[in-house]
């Protein structure tokens, strides 16, 4: 029995929702179309996104706008060194009941929301950072032996400031691996800046003119689950992730030279999910090689652990992934070097 694939009429409503969402994002936040697509892909993939950039580039605004468009509950935690896990997860408070008895009542923390903006997450202590591990992976909170599920959907959009690193605690690899994307916030062009200061008085963002209903969001997630991943593409993702490990047969020379540890199987899952999201954003029912290539870098660039030689040679994970994606034959056809296939 052949696999089921979405028909055009089945995909069309979801594609329309995606189009409208992106349209709102592009209208509210100027000059960051590609970033909007990546963040939306992260949301559709139910992944967490680590936003990295200088202050004032609109990280918080982006997260708040997504929450507004999707009508999702949004909360923000400003991570500081003295922030405690209870400040994030919630705590038990001793309260007097109507019968005069006293009991511990759980007071949910800000993590009980749909979209959590963890601002400057690297300023919290490792103890507090670790408190986020269960929430990000299991979508639940366990306190005093009681596990409480988080509201769905649940996304963590964390930000990280690449400067002023004194007194910060770099995220442990285990936590980094739980982020689907690590997205760099770059400065916008001068034309965009001119448009911002001329159209946005005091930088106030316009309100969204369209909002997604909860049912529509559920339908979007349901459609996302039906995006087809062909076997050759799945094989390509597997080969790509394997090739990030030094010593692998398909590893490039820079990978062998600079990488200490390659990406985990969770990275392969993340690429597959993100590629599905990209296919949906592109209005297609199946994943192609180009989808994988586009999402590979934001998925892999925080999962490769480089050695000291890479620091000396100013080699970054982004460069390594770009080179790896460029050299790896997507189809595994392995034609002889003197035979080339070109499109018309």
């Amino acid at each position: 029995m052949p696999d089921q694939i979405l028909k055009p009429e089945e995909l069309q409503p979801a594609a329309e929702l995606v189009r409208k969402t992106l349209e709102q994002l592009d209208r509210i936040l100027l000059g960051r179309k590609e970033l909007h697509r990546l963040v939306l892909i992260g949301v559709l993939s139910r992944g967490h996104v680590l936003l990295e950039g200088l202050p004032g580039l609109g990280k918080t605004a982006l997260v708040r706008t997504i929450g507004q468009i999707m009508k999702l509950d949004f909360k923000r935690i400003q991570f500081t060194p003295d922030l405690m896990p209870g400040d994030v997860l919630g705590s038990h408070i001793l309260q007097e009941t109507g019968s005069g008895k006293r009991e511990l009542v759980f007071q949910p923390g800000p993590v009980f929301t749909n979209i959590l903006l963890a601002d400057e997450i690297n300023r919290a202590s490792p103890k507090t950072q670790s408190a986020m591990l269960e929430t990000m992976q299991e979508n639940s909170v366990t306190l005093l032996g009681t596990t409480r599920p988080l509201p769905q959907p649940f996304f963590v959009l964390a930000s990280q400031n690449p400067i002023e690193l004194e007194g910060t605690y770099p995220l442990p690899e285990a936590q980094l691996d739980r982020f689907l994307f690590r997205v760099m916030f770059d400065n916008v062009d001068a034309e965009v800046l001119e448009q911002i200061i001329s159209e946005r008085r005091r930088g106030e963002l316009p309100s969204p003119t369209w909002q997604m209903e909860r049912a529509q969001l559920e339908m979007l997630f349901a459609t996302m689950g039906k995006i087809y991943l062909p076997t050759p593409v799945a094989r390509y993702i597997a080969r790509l992730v394997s090739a990030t490990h030094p010593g692998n047969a398909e590893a490039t020379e820079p990978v062998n030279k600079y990488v200490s540890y390659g990406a985990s199987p969770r990275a392969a899952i993340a690429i597959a999910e993100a590629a599905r999201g990209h296919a949906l954003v592109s209005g297609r029912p199946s994943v192609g090689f180009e989808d994988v290539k586009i999402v590979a870098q934001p998925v892999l660039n925080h999962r490769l652990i480089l050695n000291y030689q890479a620091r000396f040679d100013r080699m970054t994970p982004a460069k390594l992934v770009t080179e790896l994606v460029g050299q790896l034959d997507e189809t595994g056809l392995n034609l002889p070097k003197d035979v080339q296939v070109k499109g018309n």
Partner: protein
Amino acid sequence: MSINHHDALKTFAARLARLLMLRRAVQWLTVWFFIWGAIVLAARVAGFTQTYWLTLGIFFALPAIIFAALAARKELPVFSKIRARYDQINSCGGIVMANETAETSAWFAQLAPASVPELHWHSGRALGMLFIAAAFAATALLLPERLTHLGNQSHLAISQIVDQLKAEVQTLAQEKIVPDTKADDLKKQLAALEKDSSANDPNKTWEALDHIKQANSDSAKSAAEEAVKKTESLTQAETLAKAMEMAAEKNGAESGMDGATAAQAAQALAAMLNAAKLEEGVLNGKIPPELLANLSGAEGLNQEQMEKLAKALAANKGALSNTMSNLANLKMIDAATLAKMQAAGNKSKSNCEGLALYLSQCKGGGKCESDILFSWVLKRGRGGPGGGGPEAPMDWDNDTSEANIKFQEHVLPPSPHLSDAQLVGVSKAAPELAKADVSVESGALNNAAAGGGSGHAQVILPEHRQAVQKFFKRDEK
């Protein structure tokens, strides 16, 4: 003309398969040409001359192509990978790939128009190698035979000839005909020739051997001529000495030789020995000087001295005879020269008794002049001094000379000219026997009687002409 993605994918797969098979066939063909060329070259260098069989290697090219195509077909990528590449090239976004396991026909209408991806084979290097390999095989086949045998330094079998020439040189040196230094040089030359002789260029070796043989022959010939002359002189002197001895036995009697005649004869004998120049030349003999001095003196030689002189003369003759015998044993002198030598040393032909009679009758030495004595020594017969000299001898020793004699000329039937010949084939291998059903015809000479001037006219090919001329070459007399 529009084409759907299914057909375009099939066309792409077929073209890719054909291209990969062609590429592999070119590779195998190149390898085969190199191997074939190497085999041909090795066979030819090893001495295999039947290049006809080697050319049959070209027929192995076809199986090589077929097997290469089959091997390439086995190694063809799986269709799903080809489909994936087609999907990628045509930017189908995985829809064509998904069509392998899912029904995606509804999406095909939304894809870009189908087109067969172009295949490019950068075949310059492969075809270049194929051309080089083919050229190598062709060169190995067409290489001239003299170049294929460059590495073979086969020696000529000249040891027997060299040994003979060494023996000749040794004999010439022993007989003092050539100096020892020259003999040593010739021996060294012969050893070097034997070591360095090459069958690839035999003319050089043969010319050098001929040169040494000619030099030996010339030395022997000049020595033989000298020996003949000296032997003649010694025989004459011996004859005169014998005649004097016979005449001296009658000394004192009325019929014996008187003292004046004896002295005159002794002086004539001395003059004869001096004229012989025994001490000169390569075959120098020796007469005791006191005998020569007494011979030239007024008293002449007594009986005992005459006997000594006769012995010395005989010894010198014997030495010369031995030398000539040694040269004859090695065939360094011909039979005519040897016969001359024997004739020169034959005393029986001289008129010894007549001369003795003449000397005994020549009283007072008045008529006993040297010229007359010489003529008596030289002439034969038994003529008396008063009868006008010795009678002309009749013997059978002197052969009739063939010089300046013309024979009657006969015109021989014309032989077939080489230009009229038909080349049947050139083969260095052993000639093959004709089949039994092929009759042997001798053409115009059919049923001709042998020995009647209609003998088989052998056609001498240009490359054999020099050898034949050398074989039939005779020394000019």
